[in-house]
């Protein structure tokens, strides 16, 4: 049962302090179904920490994170994944020693327990799904290559693909186009448009052109707090935002 029907994710009063330093300070925001939300902000604003808190990598000091009415702050990392939250890291983290196929297969939502993994059978269903996702992320020709041989951009796509195969309802991406070429960036924007049809997406990004292209709404963070929120035009004209970005 959803507590607040329209919100997939509601973050309220979220605070985390590292030895007294509040990296995230009383942050609240809400994400609707099928919304693409982008978090921007200067370095050290606490953007990545927010993602860490939602996916369970860091435990919050105070506040609540509700995903479809379910409290996430008490769950373990893998339980949060099973609840339907997927997260891509800033540096592409993939399995370099495995092939692209195997990378994708390991994220397939079956055989996630020890004995399930021992008896996991690579059947037609798995193969079809991997092929489908590989095509989506432009890697269908490279299924048998070792992941270490991919370019930086391809590694980013592979990690996005690993998330897609889990079919999460909330997808969190930490700087998905960092280090990508212009053409790769365009392909990624198209990819994101395509994959957000049936899920909500939370993106951290620095590249303003890219943000303009994909964002439904933008949250601006500064020094652990939410500075401004709204459409891209709205935040761009917000004097507080201009102050932070251009003031110094």
């Amino acid at each position: 049962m959803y507590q607040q029907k329209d919100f997939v994710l509601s973050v309220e009063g979220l605070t985390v302090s590292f030895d007294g330093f509040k990296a995230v300070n009383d942050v609240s925001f809400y994400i609707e179904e099928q919304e693409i939300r982008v978090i921007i902000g200067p370095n050290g604003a606490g953007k990545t920490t927010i993602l860490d808190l939602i996916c369970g990598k860091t435990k919050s000091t105070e506040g609540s994170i509700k995903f479809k009415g379910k409290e996430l702050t008490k769950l373990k990392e893998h339980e949060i994944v099973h609840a339907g939250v997927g997260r891509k890291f800033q540096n592409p983290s993939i399995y370099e020693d495995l092939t692209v196929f195997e990378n994708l297969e390991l994220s397939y939502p079956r055989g996630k327990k020890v004995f399930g993994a021992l008896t996991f059978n690579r059947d037609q269903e798995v193969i079809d799904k991997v092929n489908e996702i590989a095509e989506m992320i432009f890697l269908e020709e490279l299924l048998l290559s070792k992941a270490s041989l991919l370019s930086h951009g391809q590694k980013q796509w592979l990690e996005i693909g690993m998330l897609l195969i889990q079919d999460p309802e909330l997808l969190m991406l930490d700087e998905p186009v960092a280090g990508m070429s212009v053409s790769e960036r365009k392909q990624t924007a198209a990819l994101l448009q395509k994959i957000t049809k049936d899920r909500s997406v939370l993106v951290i990004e620095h590249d303003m052109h890219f943000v303009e292209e994909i964002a439904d709404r933008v949250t601006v963070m500064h020094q652990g707090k939410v500075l401004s929120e709204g459409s891209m035009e709205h935040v761009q004209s917000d004097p507080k935002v201009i102050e932070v970005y251009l003031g110094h």
Partner: protein
Amino acid sequence: MLQSKFKSLTPRNDVLSFIVLAIVLMVLLPILFDIFRLNLIGKYLTFAFVAIGLVLSWGLGGILSLGQGVFFGIGGYAMAMFLKLEASTPENTAIQSTPGIPDFMDWNQLTALPWFWEPFHSFTFTVVAIIVVPAIFAYIIGAAMFKRRVGGVYFAIITQAIAAIMTILIIGQQGYTGGVNGITDLRTLLGWDIRTDSAKYVLYFVNAFLLLAVLVVAQYIRKSKLGRLLVAMRDSEDRVRFSGYDVSNFKIFIFCIAGIFSSIGGAMFTLQVGFMSPSLIGIVPSIEMVIFAAVGGNLSIIGAVYGALLVNWAKTILSESYPEIWLFAMGALFIAVVMAFPKGLAGLYETYIQPKVDKQLDKWFKKEKAE
């Protein structure tokens, strides 16, 4: 990639090296060597069990245990306790002040068998214990470490400390364990004299067969999704965790498997060599076992067997003539392997020999198809 499950479990090269190993162990070595040497080889092979376990946990999963001697000891002592009880019949021990208990207990003024020795009258219990006790012990250590995300060097140091503690405990509790001498003077297994040449032959083959069986299990694990997950965890543990896996459970599992393999090796050691002592479970032997796996190639289960054979053979040769040099030679060997051939014997084989073998096999298979 898209072939049937069985095919993906058994790549051609793996099958070939398994068959070659089986022929070497079952045919070649027994023909080439007399029973004295063959018995020694059997002893070396018991360490291969440990090395195979280390390939799975360390090579594949990146979990380096420097205390595998503990598990070798659990199996070895379990078997030794059973054999010792069988050898300590009231008739055999009539001259003791308490007949019917193992001799070392009598020397230490014990007058009754300790409670934890009682179940080892049963052979079935002993066999079950050889499998189950190391699994439980590994589970406890694994759960305590991995659930708290202790790993890497810290895990290695803690396992090493456990090996040291076990040795001290066994040596200190002389009356219950036989102390520094270990459990010696073992004679029969269910009435069958294990000291005769024919028994040694039989035990050699049983050992070789068990080793091949363990290799099959290891290959299954390696080629299952769990095997790929272990590799994935080594590459990027967080990615695995955030793909919905409880990483610690997989580490515990593979650590338990490595412990069970080691324990089977320990039991076979006791049977073939006729004693078990703390000198086989402490820090030095535990590190030696890691070296066997490293020399064989820490990613190759078959390589582990050759590594154990080769290093132990070198150890026997060297320590026969220059006993004081052995430890230095071992250290040098380890450094050499890590610096010069990080993939060990298996790596050398893959680089220099396998391409030629592959070519030859391709030729044969083509011929078959053409015909």
